[in-house]
């Protein structure tokens, strides 16, 4: 997979995305309150916290699905307060969902091919004829998609409608669709939820491989502390929409506020 060419390049280790004083509420419910953190290029950044802490809301803000009432997001040096999801996709942000948002009526192959939509440029009339350059484009992208299918070890199910697949495989296909976008920043919302140990190990391996081989920056929400400690370079902890800790896994693990939040101590 190639790195996306659009926009200014960010060197590894520099800040790729920064969240500044973001607040988001739904009516009276404060989902996120005055949260700031950054994600550096090439790292795996975990976002953890108890249920309802505002983790998913944070991802939704990052990829433009929700617009925060306060605060700013800078991505690749460009600051914006409002952005549409498809603009985020253009900018190189891809994501998976907590409860799988695949195109259920389509095959695994078509789902992943759909992830290449932005990279395909042959116009309507070429598509109608599906001939010459249009077919060549389709085949070229099929090659890329087959690489992903091989990487995720889902060759056997490429022609299966994803609605019929077991949950664990659906999560894999969804990761495949996100990878097909060749994102610069990959947001994963609980990629291992509901999986057994073996599936979790597979998925952890995929996440690490994506990060190592393609240099993709990853923001990961995960409840399994073992997984978080193993995979992530830095961790940000949210509780009730407030950031309570930020640092390396070891720092966070020994932070008293984090321990209290997870043990449910009143504050």
């Amino acid at each position: 997979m190639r790195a996306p060419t659009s926009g200014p390049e960010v060197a590894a280790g520099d800040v790729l995305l920064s969240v500044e004083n973001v607040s988001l509420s739904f009516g009276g419910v404060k989902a996120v309150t005055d949260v700031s953190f950054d994600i550096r290029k090439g790292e795996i950044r975990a976002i953890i916290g108890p249920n309802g802490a505002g983790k998913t809301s944070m991802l939704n803000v990052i990829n433009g699905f929700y617009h925060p009432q306060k605060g700013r997001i800078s991505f690749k040096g460009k600051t914006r307060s409002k952005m549409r999801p498809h603009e985020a996709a253009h900018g190189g942000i891809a994501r998976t969902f907590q409860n799988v948002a695949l195109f259920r009526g389509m095959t695994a192959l078509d789902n992943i091919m759909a992830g290449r939509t932005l990279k395909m440029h042959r116009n309507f009339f070429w598509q109608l004829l599906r001939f010459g350059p249009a077919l060549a484009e389709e085949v070229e992208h099929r090659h890329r998609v087959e690489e992903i299918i091989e990487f995720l070890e889902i060759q056997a199910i490429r022609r299966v409608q994803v609605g019929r697949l077991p949950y664990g495989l659906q999560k894999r296909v969804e990761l495949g669709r996100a990878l097909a976008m060749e994102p610069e920043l990959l947001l994963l919302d609980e990629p291992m939820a509901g999986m057994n140990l073996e599936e979790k190990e597979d998925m952890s391996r995929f996440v690490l491989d994506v990060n190592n081989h393609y240099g993709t920056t990853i923001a990961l929400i995960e409840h399994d502390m073992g997984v978080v400690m193993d995979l992530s370079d830095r961790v940000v902890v949210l509780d009730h929409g407030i950031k309570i800790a930020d640092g390396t896994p070891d720092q966070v693990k020994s932070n008293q506020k984090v321990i209290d939040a997870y043990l449910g101590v009143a504050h």
Partner: protein
Amino acid sequence: MFYREAGQFKTSYSADESVFPILQDRIGIAVILGLAFVVIPLTATSFTLSSVLIPVLIFSLAAIGLNLLTGYTGLLSLGTGGFMGVGAYACYKLTSLFPNANIIVLILASGFFSAGIGAVFGLPSLRIKGFYLAVATLASQFFLSWCFVRVPWLVNYNVSNAIEVPTRTMFDIPITGPNATPMTRYLVVLSIVVGMTWLASNLLRGRIGRTWMAVRDMDIAAELIGIRLYRTKLLAFAVSSFYCGVAGAMMVFLWLGAAEADSFNINQSFLILFMVIIGGLGSLIGSFFGAAFIWGLPIVLKMLPEFFGVKIHAATVEHLQFMTLGALIIFFLVVEPHGLARLWQIGKQKLRVWPFPY
């Protein structure tokens, strides 16, 4: 085990990307096309051509049009009749404006008018979905019906207030009008329908088809992979209406020979919708099955009692038709929402493993 792909290995993705990757399917389609283009014209009676095959083909095209929108993009429309009407009236105006132009070109060109109108009436789909969108398209149906009745300019101020199809020839052979033979009209209809079906299948297997289905299955996720919803939906409305418009033009010019506003009312919209539901939402071949089934059912029901020598009142036959159709629609909605196309697939699967049960 006569029908199977065993031993047919694809050595390249381009071979795997073809319409019919399985050899038996390719042979099957060649046989069907041979029958349709050669054997049927040589053997079929005028009645079969004019009253069975031509209408079934035209309705199939309209059903494909609606299927692109409802089955593939997930946008329910009750305006099909109106969009077909736009094609028919546009074609009539075009034949009057350009009396010397090739009639087939004009029939295809009239599709662009319904595509434009369809895209305009598709605008509400950017805001509303499901039931509310269906009601909005229903409003467009009523508006268009009203135009067909009330705007005499559309029918060149004919006293009959109907489209009267003029004679148009190509290579001195009459294609439209009273002198066109059923066989000529059948071959023209067949060519257009086969060609447009092929184009639709190209679209559906490529990027555009995937964006349509993505919007149908999960519009939020579609947006997050970079699909622009408004473009995708409006394109679906335009292409769908193009197909319906061409079907409408063919219906008047190559089948009925004349038509009033009533031909394009809400009943027509429902008829096409039933074809799509019974044939199979999201299936091209299902569109043909649905059209053949709904058009053929009354003919069969009419012939059966005669065949067995039973005398049944014509009115009873008509009631029977409505009841059977209603029951079948409910059956398919409940039991097999993917329609006849799904039964076809199951049949093929059975054939693949035959003689073993699975």
